């Protein structure tokens, strides 16, 4: 399974990678939506994209919209991971094509739970509370 973590914060990318790698994901990273498209072209289409909202160059919402207009990215699961906490923002992300929505700050358990909901992680995979 492949995952891409798209966030302009290196710290967030590292934290999410530390959650994903033990679950068996091959993880690649991008600092913004544009870099994500390049990384996907270089590394292949991931099963799941974890996407921040507020990023320079191409923000997370624009990435989601673009991904959903591309036939070959249409089956990629997308989880928005963002500080945007307003309900209308969440609705906008989901309407634009995100499959799940996680608000920062997040815990390892929440990320794993969402991955399980999306069907990219089995329910019997490690959910120990160490993050």
């Amino acid at each position: 399974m492949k995952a891409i973590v798209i966030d302009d914060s290196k710290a967030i990318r590292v934290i999410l990678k530390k959650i994903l790698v033990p679950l068996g994901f091959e993880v690649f990273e991008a600092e913004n939506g544009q870099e994500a498209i390049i990384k996907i072209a270089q590394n292949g289409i991931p099963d799941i994209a974890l996407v921040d909202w507020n990023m320079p160059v191409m923000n997370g919402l624009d990435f989601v919209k673009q991904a959903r207009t591309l036939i070959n990215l249409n089956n990629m699961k997308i989880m928005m991971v963002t500080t945007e906490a307003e309900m209308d923002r969440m609705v906008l992300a989901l309407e634009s094509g995100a499959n799940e929505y996680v608000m920062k700050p997040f815990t390892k358990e929440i990320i794993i739970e969402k991955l399980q909901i999306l069907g990219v992680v089995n329910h019997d995979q490690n959910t120990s509370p160490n993050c």
Partner: protein
Amino acid sequence: MRILIVDDSPDIAELLGEIISDMGFGISVVNSGQAALDELNNKGPFNMVLVDWKMPEMSGLDLIKSIRSEAKYNDMQIIMITGMTDLEDVSLALESGANEYLMKPFSQEMVLDKLRLCGVDLGDQPSA
């Protein structure tokens, strides 16, 4: 380190030239694909080529294919620089032989990051 810049836009070529020459690298600038092939043949060797996609007569994509068709350029690093942002476009450029892909508009930091990804040692320059 010698870098060839290929762009039919003088403004973009000048901007790239300033960024790269500020790093202390030698640059050459041409405004078409054919001029790039001539420059590579007559004034090489170059270590890297930065290629605009949309140019009249010979596109950047065709230039890359032409460069990759010659074994003597096997070690040449090529960065495609373009406003084309679709996954299909990026994939096509990479499959055609580009090593990296930079989308316009770009910043100095974005250019330097791509140079690093192509193995260029930039010394103490901070990453973006």
